[in-house]
């Protein structure tokens, strides 16, 4: 795994909501094909961090690159110009997002959810998109649910379809925003299994999660965030087992209790 150039490079990114500083000067580099887990208490800015990479939030300062391309802005001389809606939409193709609340399109069946992007955004032929979507449904273990509407699926099944929908766009990076936090405990395993499979296939993943066991097993690198800052970063064996920082120690003790 080559470390350079990184798939995602974030430099001094600050994001403010009113008077609340959600991210304060965050920097991070995520290597190609690696799994980066981000842990931290709620309100620590980890979800905001993901949403900034996917441009669901506009950053107030700093810069980020995905696969070498500056995100959200175009540099002209010494200034950065905001990109247009269409340019932002094109850049988002590189980063697919899996949401905490699944957000499957509720008026479309599982299969239709997966082929929607390839057909309307990538202009792929329908038959081809359907074939690929079926292959993805096989991969997440739900081929028999192709015609089911989201409301007819369990939370775990919805999230697996949502992962397939994200994969159908063939993104360079998969962003997971607490993908198992809205699930009943017995459904968490099936979603983590799909994510483990993805990680093994060499997909670059950034995962915001509370599943420390998953992070320990799958992540190359774990970052602990608190109050909009990256407090500590390193291999899971260090950050999760013998963290250096007292805030990390307190958090991990609280989660494991």
């Amino acid at each position, binding site marked *: 795994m080559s470390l350079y150039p990184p798939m995602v490079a974030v430099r001094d990114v600050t994001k403010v909501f009113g008077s609340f500083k959600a991210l304060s000067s965050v920097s991070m580099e995520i290597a190609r094909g690696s799994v980066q887990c981000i842990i931290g208490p709620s309100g620590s800015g980890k979800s905001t961090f993901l949403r900034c990479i*996917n441009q*669901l939030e506009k950053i107030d300062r700093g810069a980020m690159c995905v696969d070498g391309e500056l995100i959200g802005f175009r540099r002209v001389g010494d200034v950065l110009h905001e990109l247009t*809606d*269409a340019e932002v*939409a*094109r850049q*988002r*193709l590189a*980063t*697919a*997002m899996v*949401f905490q*609340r699944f*957000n*499957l*399109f*509720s*008026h*479309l*069946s599982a*299969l*239709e959810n997966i082929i*929607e*992007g390839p057909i*309307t*955004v*990538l202009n792929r032929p329908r038959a081809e998109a359907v074939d690929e979507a079926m292959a993805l449904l096989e991969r997440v273990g739900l081929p028999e649910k192709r*015609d089911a*509407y*989201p*409301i*007819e699926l369990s939370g775990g099944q919805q999230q697996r379809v*949502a992962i397939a*929908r*994200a994969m159908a*766009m063939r993104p360079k990076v998969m962003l997971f925003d607490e993908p198992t936090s809205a699930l009943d405990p017995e459904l968490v395993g099936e979603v983590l299994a799909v994510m483990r499979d993805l990680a093994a296939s060499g997909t670059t993943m950034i995962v915001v999660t509370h599943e420390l066991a998953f992070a320990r097993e799958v992540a190359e690198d774990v970052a602990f965030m608190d109050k909009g800052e990256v407090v500590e970063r390193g291999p899971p064996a260090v950050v999760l087992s013998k963290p250096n920082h007292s805030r990390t120690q307190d958090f991990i003790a609280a989660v494991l209790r």
Partner: protein
Amino acid sequence: MSAPPPSSVKAMRDLAEVAGLRIVPRRFYGRWIAAILILGVFAWIVKAFADGQIAWNVVAQFFTAPAILSGLVNTVIMTACAMALGITLGVIFAVMYMSPNPVLRGSALFYIWFFRGTPLLLQLLLWFNLALVFPKLGIPGLLEMRTVDVMTPFVATLLGLGMNQGAYTAEVIRSGILSVDAGQTEAAKSIGMTRLTVLRRVVLPQAMRVIIPPVGNEFISMVKLTSIASVIQYSEILRNAQTIYYANARVIELLIVAAAWYLMVVTLLQLGQFFLERHFSKGRGERRPRADLGGKT
């Protein structure tokens, strides 16, 4: 636990006996009385119409009279065109209203304010008499027409009804759009859709569930609202019925003819609304046979 008191032992014995008794369903005497009263009133109304001085043969005679049928066609065409214009304007102004652009927002607010704030009859008269303000329309030097030639009763009615409808429909559509969870928009954006595609492919199809019942309601109102266009000589069904009864004095008969046609059109529309609602309720709870989904996926 101590031994149960003797009284509860007796209660248990009684319960065993009660459990074997026959059940007599509750009788709804009130419903029977109400039904008899209502049927009585209904019979009285039917008898009144049967005995009244209504020449039913005249009703039958004019039911398919050419003037009535052409009026019917004009009513249906105007309803369809005015609603099409109203819904198109409604979508445009609803989206403008929700735009971050203050100029677009302001114009949408002004449009809704003006057309909801003035009587429809007044708007119709304004359009019809537009020539008093603008004798000529078009691009000076290139294309010019006399306003009186352009503002036929049809065009004036269409603009009047359509623009007025648009102001109301804009609010209905806005509420429909607001009813769609923000997560749907985020998910659509995250797979690279532009704002317009998000609206067209994800938000509007889901908003339809909320939009259709009130718009169906307005469609039905519109059928009857077209009759107001008789004031500017648009020959819809009620105006043609009036023209006939001015000549033959069969007032009630012709009103019955018109009423029957209105009811038929409205019945068809209600049927259409039922099927539309069913179509757009896809993925909303009730499970339907898969056979319904064939073709359109």
